[in-house]
């Protein structure tokens, strides 16, 4: 079974300068991903970058992943 820690590791390894916070029950996961490279990208492009980092695991091990993708600037604006 996939753990939130594994998903966090895969995302952070696949996306340069990123930090992910992942929670989940082994089937459904939720992730907040902060990455500088998201800057200037649309929501679709950001999600596609995360999907690319996870690769084929999205088709097999990970049943469902809900995500929020933000840049460091966006986090500062929200707080």
């Amino acid at each position, binding site marked *: 079974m996939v753990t939130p820690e594994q998903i966090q590791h895969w995302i952070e390894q696949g996306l340069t300068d990123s930090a992910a916070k992942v929670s989940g029950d082994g089937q*459904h996961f939720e992730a907040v991903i902060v990455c500088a490279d998201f800057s200037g990208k649309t*929501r*679709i492009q950001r*999600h*596609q970058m995360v999907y690319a980092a996870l690769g084929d695991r*999205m088709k097999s091990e990970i049943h*469902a992943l*809900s995500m*929020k993708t933000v840049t460091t600037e966006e986090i500062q604006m929200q707080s």
Partner: protein
Amino acid sequence: MAQEIIKKTVEDNEIVLFMKGSQDFPQCGFSGRAVQILSACGADFASVDVLADEQIRDGIKQFSNWPTVPQLYVKGEFIGGSDIMMEMYQSGELQQILGDKEHA
């Protein structure tokens, strides 16, 4: 073949949701959420149950290079999955996109 059917579907329907199950009986939490969001926007939309056709189920993932369902298309353009729909709904962008159709 599946790609052509999908292309025609998104061109022929102003708002179309590819989902698991039907609008009345979604078969997955994310699809159910997508239907709820569109309903909250008062949108009249077509839906395609990907569970009913294996070729469409696989094909839709390649169509927009997006590995998950649901997927929303408005005027032939891919808008996103349920997370993006929710973000856009909360910011009011989704209502705008869907509303444009009524004013057009």
